[in-house]
């Protein structure tokens, strides 16, 4: 199986790292080889931030080379130009425009809604996404996350 590359991007504090953790955890539990890369530090102070998730039979570098992202999931519109070069020709760009934000239980759940949208491109069982989300978020967020996830999938 060819390695699948998913790049998450946004601004510090918008849940970029959390979203990438969810996909990494999910694909890890499904038995894939998984690597995940991110940069901490200065970038957490509201600046641009991105995280790479790569999964498949065997993954080499943890960083997605330019022009090789199968999916680019961007949480802030102004971060599209910053990350566009990573998307491969014919790759899929997901942005907040793909979500009916007015329906979300809170602005904070946008990252989970984007994961919901992303989930429609894969055959992974929805329950597995739910399990990964529950594992990575504190219990008080579970209800809102579930709602946001299905809104992202276009099922609510």
């Amino acid at each position: 199986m060819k390695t699948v590359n998913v790049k998450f991007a946004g601004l510090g504090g918008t849940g970029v790292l959390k979203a990438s953790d969810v996909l990494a955890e999910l694909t890890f539990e499904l038995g894939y080889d998984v690597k995940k890369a991110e940069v901490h530090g200065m970038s957490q102070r509201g600046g641009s931030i991105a995280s790479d998730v790569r999964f498949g039979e065997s993954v080499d570098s943890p960083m997605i080379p330019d022009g090789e992202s199968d999916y680019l999931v961007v949480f802030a519109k102004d971060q599209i130009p910053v990350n566009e070069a990573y998307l491969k020709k014919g790759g899929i760009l997901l942005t907040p425009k793909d979500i009916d934000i007015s329906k979300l239980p809170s602005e904070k759940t946008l990252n989970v809604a984007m994961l919901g949208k992303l989930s429609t491109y894969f055959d992974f069982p929805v329950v597995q996404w739910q399990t990964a989300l529950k594992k990575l978020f504190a219990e008080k967020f579970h209800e809102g996350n579930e709602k946001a996830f299905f809104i992202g999938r276009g099922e609510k």
Partner: protein
Amino acid sequence: MPAFNPNAQRMLISGNEALALSMLHCNVQVAAGYPGTPSSEILENYSEIGGFAQWCPNEKVAAEVALGAAFGHARSVVTMKHVGLNVASDTLYTATYTGVQGGMVWIVADDPGQGSSQNEQDTRNHAKASVCPMFEPSNSQDAYDMLRLAFKTSERFNIPVILRMTTRVDHSKSIVIPAQDRLDALVPDFVRDIPARVMVPGYAKPAGRRLRAKMETLEKWNVEEGPNVIEMRSPDLGIITAGICYHHVREASPEASTLKLGMTYPLPMETIRKFAGSVKRLVVIEENDPWLAENLRAAGIPVESKYDPIFRFGEMDVNRIKRILAGDKSPDPVPVKGKAPALCEGCPHRSSFAVLKELDCIVSGDIGCYTLAALPPFSSMDMMVDMGAAIGMGIGLRQVLPREQAKRVVSVIGDSTFVHSGITGLVQMAYNKPETGHVVIILDNSITAMTGQQEHPGTGRKLDHSPTYKLDYGEIAKACGIPNVVVVNPVKDTDGLKKAVQEALAKDELTLIIAKSPCILALKSILAWEKANKEMLEKETQK
């Protein structure tokens, strides 16, 4: 709650988490450090999964604590970022002479590409200069395995060992399958051996010779048993590499034969010669300094290497390696500029720098979140070099500038940075007082904020947030000979701060202003830790 389950049989964890787990499985008795991206999470994770970890005032003290423990036949770890090793190098360069009786590993994290650092220095230079054996893991499993091997090496050869990490190994997640067995705990015991541990010249001279002899033995061991892996594929191209670059190489050139070096000092020259002889074209792929390339050439092994005017800067990646192999010397594609980080909304530093900007101060700055005040809209920090430098540089400026400029100089330093390296600056300030006096402002947000909200001696809480003695900056200043100490809240009383700075600048005296207001991101946690500690104290007094 730890970020991962330490009891799982297979886990997806970061390099820093893998190190913490390995420390637990190696029965590390003392772990000390000072926070610094990308190394900070190692000790935090170790504490969360049950290990004994401590933050120290700075890397030098941390290294000395770990060295003392290893003199006492314990297993110890010290963690730091690359520039932290500059602070602790005084310890390292002679600890290799003394050697250790237990096991001691220096985990040093480099930051190629300078994601969060003031320079891009390469720890491999320190390893060679201090004559300290060095391992370089490439991913989380390697980090887990090599820490154990580093301890075995340290204990077998009685020498401290460096485990060189890089940002991508620290912070990338990959799969780890932990070992089934554990290293037996060492039993601490002091055995007197004065000539081995007192480095007066009479004892140090033979120790230096012993150290070099040890390196010869270690190189032989590295050739015979070291963690270096030759993978023969095409004989047309052979690549020598180490660390994260190995994984980039595998992707950039899947056909190439590879020699992945796990122990890079002392280098296994015989292994390298063998590999060199088995391929037609030999290329070294490494990040930052041309360290491997230069060492191999010095040993008479001709290698191709990256074009340094371009590729010695920044992180290595798959595309860059493809270009290096193709001999492409054109500049890197210019990435679209992202949004720069900024001081958080509600950050107390905002108020402090608004005052300094308004008063047109010449600001001798330091390292922390507040360094962001050098960027617009504040643009009110004029220099930042290293931890604690704010005070010394401010004094130097005051000593030479014309009076009307000297009177505008203010040294600005964070609370954690002040404890790290600022106290000696205060001593100097009183000892060699500039004619115009001087003003130091401690921006006290009551946490080590930039690296992710770690405790320090000024918070009154230990690494695990339990209570301990709380350092009083004002008392320190008075003891150093600073007559004026002002404490002011820069958010609630911004005018008060302005007045305090104005008054201090007007006098030809020494003043310490403590601008105290907690980090807005840490506030909730600080209140929760304080509450928990208060409740614990109440329970104890009831007993």
